[in-house]
């Protein structure tokens, strides 16, 4: 794709700005800032990837992957406001997921151990794990609040905090997995995944693109389950005080 062709894509931005002005939506400033940010961020990533893909040593990728996990954990932690220490717990859950996926993919030689594959698949895995962690925390917050009576009834009968919150954890893990499982059921029919579409546009054989997409879909399903379960086990105590009382997050 030539730079001139890329420049022409600004027409789409022009259309959006025009609609915003015409309909008095007041979004022009946000659209322009968003356009500049998206272009600069993607260009910068392109340059970094260009440099990274030339390297022969996978160890060089480690700081990049750690940075990706840190940003993902920090972002998902926004869903767990009031739970102190949630960010590093999410970080561990995502890191464990990434480690499991990479060990399997590289160990079984499913993908080549080159930066192109490692960085691209890590990006997708970490991004998916971040979304799953956010969904899990959202669901837990809602469920714990609506199940206060149930949790305190169990505590009043001498239950441990794990026993008292077990049902909420189970429901939240389930809820966080549903979008991934639904996506797996409808992939290729309702939606053509971005990675597969990208490969086909870039000239790859569609069957080859499909094989990689199958890999990603299956890896996403297990990474979603692993992230959600690890996060639930690492975080359930945060909903309680040291005296085993259920916190009121809104009041803290």
């Amino acid at each position: 794709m030539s730079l001139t062709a890329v420049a022409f894509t600004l027409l789409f931005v022009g259309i959006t700005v025009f609609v915003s002005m015409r309909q008095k939506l007041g979004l022009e400033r946000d659209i322009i800032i968003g356009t500049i940010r998206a272009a600069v961020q993607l260009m910068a990533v392109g340059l970094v990837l260009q440099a990274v893909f030339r390297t022969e040593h996978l160890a060089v990728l480690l700081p990049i992957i750690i940075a990706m996990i840190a940003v993902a954990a920090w972002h998902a932690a926004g869903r767990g406001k009031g739970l102190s220490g949630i960010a590093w717990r999410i970080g561990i859950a995502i890191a464990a997921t990434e480690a499991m996926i990479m060990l399997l993919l590289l160990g079984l030689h499913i993908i080549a151990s080159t930066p192109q594959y490692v960085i691209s698949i890590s990006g997708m895995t970490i991004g998916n794990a971040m979304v799953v962690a956010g969904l899990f925390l959202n669901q837990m917050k809602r469920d714990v609040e609506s199940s206060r009576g149930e949790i305190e009834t169990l505590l009043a009968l001498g239950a441990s905090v794990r026993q008292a919150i077990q049902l909420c954890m189970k429901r939240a893990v389930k809820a966080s997995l549903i979008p991934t499982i639904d996506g797996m059921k409808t992939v290729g029919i309702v939606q053509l995944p971005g990675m597969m579409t990208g490969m086909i546009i870039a000239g790859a054989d569609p069957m080859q693109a499909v094989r990689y997409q199958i890999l990603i879909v299956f890896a996403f399903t297990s990474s979603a389950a692993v992230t959600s379960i690890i996060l639930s086990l690492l975080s359930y105590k945060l909903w309680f005080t040291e005296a085993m009382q259920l916190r009121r997050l809104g009041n803290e």
Partner: protein
Amino acid sequence: MGILAFANLSKTLPGGRTLFSSISAAIDEPESVALLAPSGHGKSTLLRILALLDTASGGEVLLESKASSGWHPQAWRKKASYVAQQSVMLPGTVADNLHTFSRLHETPFDEAEATRLMKAAGLSSMDWAKEAETLSGGEKQRVALVRSLLAKPSVLLLDEVTASLDEHSKEAVEKLLLTVGSEAKPALVWVTHDMEQARRVSTRTWFMADGAFTACETALFFRRPPTEAAERFLQRQASEAGP
């Protein structure tokens, strides 16, 4: 050995309002105590503190003469069991609810005792396989009480457990609680707004108003209110109850 006691107990809400300050009382035998106070004066909070479901701002709570700091909260709650106004049925059947304590603590389920308690609660004909969520409010509250009684607590903390019940269910709950546990009768602390019920079920009364606390025999409390606040409270309750 005292069953339950609190000494110099205070509670200040996050907004700075003091619910009660430096209050003390003790239950030394399995008696029945009515905890009375105007709305919003900290009855439920005190009960939750006694169940270690809430934290006091100062002072200490003791169970079997040992301060709460020396107890594991789980061990404490097995002995001092709290029952909320709105009974919560746990997911599953009536039997699942009745088995809760034995399941949580991996102890054998005492079926004979459960049957006896259900009978005492007026629920002898209830199908245990019924989904607990489908029960009426009165049935739920009675099943919740039987569930708590199966833990054989030494004190039962009752937070307006009959407030939303009809007369028949209220009577059944009172009968259950006053006749239960012939071998090891639990002490009862009843939070109630029903003065007639307080007279019927308690031998002693704790009264809280404006941060102050008094304890006296129930008969004496109603015959000769110990403070002006208690007198005003009883007059207001009488006028609200109507002729």
